């Protein structure tokens, strides 16, 4: 088993959803997570708050963002156990944010001794 990091972005459509839709969306997430936990392939993760700063340059400059585009906004990540990249991307296809314009970046975590 290898570790894969799922990085969640976008899903801007949820900003304009009504309360009932939001609840249903949340319930899809709860169900997805419960399924991952039942399969014992969920290995942790965190949500991220929307605001943030970037520190950059030889003489470091602190700026707000990066918020060039809101669809770049990272909402959080989690670590999933899978045997291959192919299997990991199959799992990511069930992410409830996809129909709402969201994206999942799937990266393999390099094992370090």
């Amino acid at each position: 088993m290898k570790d894969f990091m799922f990085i969640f972005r976008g899903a801007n459509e949820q900003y304009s959803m009504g309360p009932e839709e939001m609840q249903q969306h949340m319930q899809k997430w709860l169900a997805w997570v419960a399924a991952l936990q039942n399969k014992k392939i969920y290995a942790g993760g965190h949500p991220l708050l929307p605001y943030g700063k970037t520190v950059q340059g030889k003489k470091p400059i602190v700026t707000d963002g990066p918020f060039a585009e809101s669809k770049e906004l990272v909402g959080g990540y989690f670590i999933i156990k899978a045997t291959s990249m192919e299997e990991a991307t199959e799992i990511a296809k069930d992410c409830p944010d996809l129909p709402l314009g969201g994206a999942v970046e799937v990266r393999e975590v390099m094992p370090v001794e």
Partner: protein
Amino acid sequence: METMPGNTSNSVNAIVDHLFRHESGKMVAVLTRIFGVHNLEMAEDVVQEAFLRATQSWVFNAVPDNPAAWLMQVAKNRAIDIIRRQQHCTRYSKELAHQLEQETANTVQQFFSEAEIADSQLRMIFACCHPALKEEDQVALTLKTVAGFGIAEIARALVTNEAVIQKRLYRARQLLKEENIVLEIPAGNELSRRLESVYTILYLLFNEGYNSGKADELIRRDLCAEAMRLCLLLSTHKAGNRPATFALLSLMCFHASRFESRVSETNDIILLPGQDRSKWNKELIHRGYYFLEKSSEGEELTIYHLESAIAAEHCLAPEFALTNWQRLLQLYDMLLAIKPTPQVLLNRAIVVAQLHSITAAIDEIKQIENIDHLLRTHYIFPAVLGDLYLRLGDHRQAQPLLHTAWRLTTSQAEKKLIAEKLERLATNNLN
């Protein structure tokens, strides 16, 4: 926000149905009471934020024991936060600033008590039904702010598009601002007048869900449930616990009791004579009688009293043939005295057809003022008159009327109902 998982086992079903929708109405009302009607959009933004935060937090950390209280707490903290930040813009001495902050927090806290939340919701209903607003705007605003419907849901419920709803909401919010409407419960005569328009809107919401075959079944059910919930809320508040409120509530219960029996599994309309009465919801009928009894405490006799009594009469009859048509005719006559509309006359004629003769009923319909116009423009008139001719065997008269009715309705279920009658006509004519 995207959401993260965590210790969420068994929490999938821990959230009650429509929790967000119902809490939305409560939070918007309380926050609008705090921020003022001119800041209605700010209140709505805070609520949206609370839901987004809940989505993240609950998925990741597990659903809290009391999700509703969790949401309220987030809304309250955010409200205090916003006010604090505004106060910071004006610089006072440290001592005064501290005092102001304390007092703000205390005052805001009070708005979040159970009783005050209900009070705020009622004030919100009264504001949404303010006479300065057009009726269609009142409906949209009530659905959005009080009932917690999303734009897409309102559009679906009212069978229009989202842009139209956005426009109505915008216009309504502008008017609330321009007219300096405050969240209050009117007193004296003004209260009675305003209650009238609240009843009208609640009844409209209910009927939109109950009668319109245009919207899909699911959203219609929600509309009826919301109208009943708001009416119940009204009935438990001192400003609203009046006979007319109970009458409207009982009327809704009686109608709602037949909800399951009036469409078939294939989504066809089943009219009263063909309905399986064992499917009528007994619990709702009981509640209907309970509220009808409460509505009779007093002198007042409103259209809701009479319409509820009519609905009760139908619920009482063990089968269609045993309906007390004599009593219904009396009730319709009483209703006509205070609500002399073509629709009531039409309904009365249907009773006449059962009690006396179809010819007598047709004669009464023909005497309705402006009937020629109504027959050309309102589905229900040619549909009913055409059906009466059909029952009389006068196919020559029935055919064009039913055809007009078919053309006038946009509801697929109603179209199908009429089409079946037209088909029957065609086969009969061949024989």
